[in-house]
């Protein structure tokens, strides 16, 4: 007797809805056991993770701030992935966007530059991110180079370029030679939405991006094209859709969104350019994109949920003195269950009773 995974004839919509709930349920059961082994009260711990951050406006703001770059980048990536174009280098596009936008902020520092500064920074950052993403896209289309490798390697180039700038030409002259630019002027800073809080305009922009992506994918021919090229390349060719053009387009859009997220992060929560502005947003966004099933609304929820586990993890460290490693285990288990349960949408378990001879034959 064997337990095998059998492909379903069609995807099960019931399971598609229920699977995240099963995943969360399994996570809670596993973590309860783990917390109990650690000698922590499981109910209090789960409360610190999931409930406490949702109960006051401060934590809610922090969740939104943390989710903003993740959601923006993941939306762009989802377009790529839907079109079968594998942009792994969003982290690099994020950094290049941050650098390009910061260029205006650094050059106008201390001048009487007006309100045009921030919009110009946003536009330039998006353009730079798009151009940077076009490098792997064009290499792919013209020379057949693996976009997975080229986009990934360009992350390190961007990282070192930023490093060079803040240690060299853009270094804050008053900063004791530490590697950072001076704090941006107010006109070069993303405005806050709530006085004394950290919620900023970027979160609104992220919501607009989600809405735009939903319309693009659901209501336009271009969106249809993206989905067909990804799901059925041959059919797309017969339909006269140009897959190469789409690779260029989706890379450019996702690069632009990552670049925009980069400058919003720098001109918002950080306030100056420095190394380490991204704790790996470009990579975490890949998880967010898939966790959200490459669907704009799903990505919004996934981004907020992942942000919740970050904030909750910190609160659990403080309130329960739970070590950070447990938070990481927690996040890992959660992702594991979500992806495992997702496979049930396309597959189902089946008990197989093989007859002896076949069993020996396949040995």
């Amino acid at each position: 007797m064997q337990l095998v995974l059998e492909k379903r004839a069609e995807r099960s919509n019931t399971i598609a809805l229920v699977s995240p709930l099963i995943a969360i349920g399994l996570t809670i059961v596993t973590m309860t056991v783990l917390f109990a082994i650690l000698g922590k009260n499981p109910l209090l711990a789960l409360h610190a993770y999931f409930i406490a951050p949702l109960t006051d406006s401060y934590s809610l703001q922090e969740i939104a701030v943390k989710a903003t770059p993740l959601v923006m980048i993941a939306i762009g990536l989802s377009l790529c992935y839907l079109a079968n174009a594998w942009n792994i280098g969003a982290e690099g596009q994020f950094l290049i966007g941050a650098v390009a936008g910061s260029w205006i902020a650094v050059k106008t520092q201390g001048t009487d530059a007006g309100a045009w500064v921030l919009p110009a920074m946003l536009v330039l950052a998006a353009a730079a991110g798009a151009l940077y993403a076009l490098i792997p896209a064009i290499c792919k289309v013209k020379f057949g180079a693996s976009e997975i490798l080229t986009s990934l390697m360009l992350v390190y180039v961007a990282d070192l370029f930023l490093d060079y700038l803040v240690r060299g030409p853009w270094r804050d002259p008053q900063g004791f030679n530490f590697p950072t630019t001076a704090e941006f002027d107010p006109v070069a800073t993303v405005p806050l939405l709530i006085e004394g809080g950290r919620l900023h305009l970027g979160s609104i922009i992220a919501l607009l991006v989600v809405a735009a992506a939903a319309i693009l994918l659901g209501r336009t021919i271009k969106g249809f094209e993206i989905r067909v090229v990804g799901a059925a390349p041959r059919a797309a060719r017969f339909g006269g859709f140009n897959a190469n053009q789409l690779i260029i387009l989706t890379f450019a859009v996702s690069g632009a969104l990552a670049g925009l997220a980069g400058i919003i992060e720098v001109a918002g929560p950080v306030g100056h350019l420095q190394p380490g502005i991204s704790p790996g947003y470009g990579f975490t966004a890949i998880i967010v994109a898939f966790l959200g099933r490459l669907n704009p609304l799903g990505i919004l929820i996934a981004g907020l949920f992942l942000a919740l586990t970050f904030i909750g993890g910190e609160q659990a460290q403080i309130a329960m003195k739970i070590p950070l490693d447990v938070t990481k285990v927690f996040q890992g288990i959660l992702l594991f269950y979500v992806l495992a349960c997702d496979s049930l949408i396309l597959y189902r378990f089946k008990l197989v009773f093989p007859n002896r001879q076949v069993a020996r034959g396949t040995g």
Partner: protein
Amino acid sequence: MRKSLLALAAGLLLAGSVSAASAADKLKVGFIYLGPVGDLGWTYQHEQGRLALVKELGDKIETTTLENVPEGPDAERAIEQLVRAGNKLIFTTSFGYMDPTLKVAKKYPNVHFEHATGYKRDKNMSTYSAKWYQGRYIQGLIAAKMSKSGVLGYIGSFPIPEVVSGINATIVAAQTINPNIKVKIIWANTWFDPGKEADAAKALIDQGADVIMQHTDSPAAMQIASERGKLAFGQDSEMIKFGPKTQLTSILDTWGPYYIERVKAELAGTWKSEDTWGGLDSHMFAMAPYTNMPDDVKKMAEDAQAAITAGKLHPFKCPIVGQDGKEVECKGGANLADGQILGMNFYVKGIDDKLPGK
């Protein structure tokens, strides 16, 4: 069943809030750590300091730590989380937390902050650091005596003044023993990454270095030097168990006394924003026992340590000659001024390398 579960949950939550209330009259002290407490280097030593603090004042205070906090936008949130959890004195223990600490400090004027190794202060934000370059000077003397190849290997973290002044102090000292001493420098661009640190150590040894020194936080380089039969200096903590026949000495960060002093001031209501930059004389750091060297070298190191502690020997005694061959302006009388050391952004003559960003 469901009812009893709910009742249980409510009971547990209540129990939690009660225990929180009884802890409320204790002073809450928070710590933000860069690495894991198990890095056996920088963060480990801060954790040792915290443990010493708890041992001394544990009945009057409650401490909370957040570890592995990246030096970016997340830091501000982590610090603010500690404030919101009721911590009244917060130690942020890495240079990159400077701006986030300042931002939170401005927002919460009634909470006191202590930032390690930075230079920005406020009414409610102190800074504290140690004159590690003094220890580096002693290491430079030992290294020059012990190196057979005349080539030292140096693993830098980031080319910031604290690290650059360490390299310069090492070389200035080594040149008093061997004027032709060479140093190979590799920038790891990280404080803590055992893999990268090990690779850097291997590369340095392959380039002929036979004494390895580091400004990164893990014992990886010590282990590599030990495997390859070379000598090395530990960093931040006692690393002799990773190289019993390898470690010459180590600069030991001893934060405990400072933490105890500052928390006592907070408890007494006498806490003031201060700029503490302590050297060997004020016990902000110590040297691990001098091992794996002949007695005369050990004696020389001990003498140098005593002279520095007594203020008779200054590592940056003028004249200091820069890489360009020009004498550095001597702003501190007989020695370089503290500000020149805190902002050091040049290599001294004899370093055959280029400072990144110059």
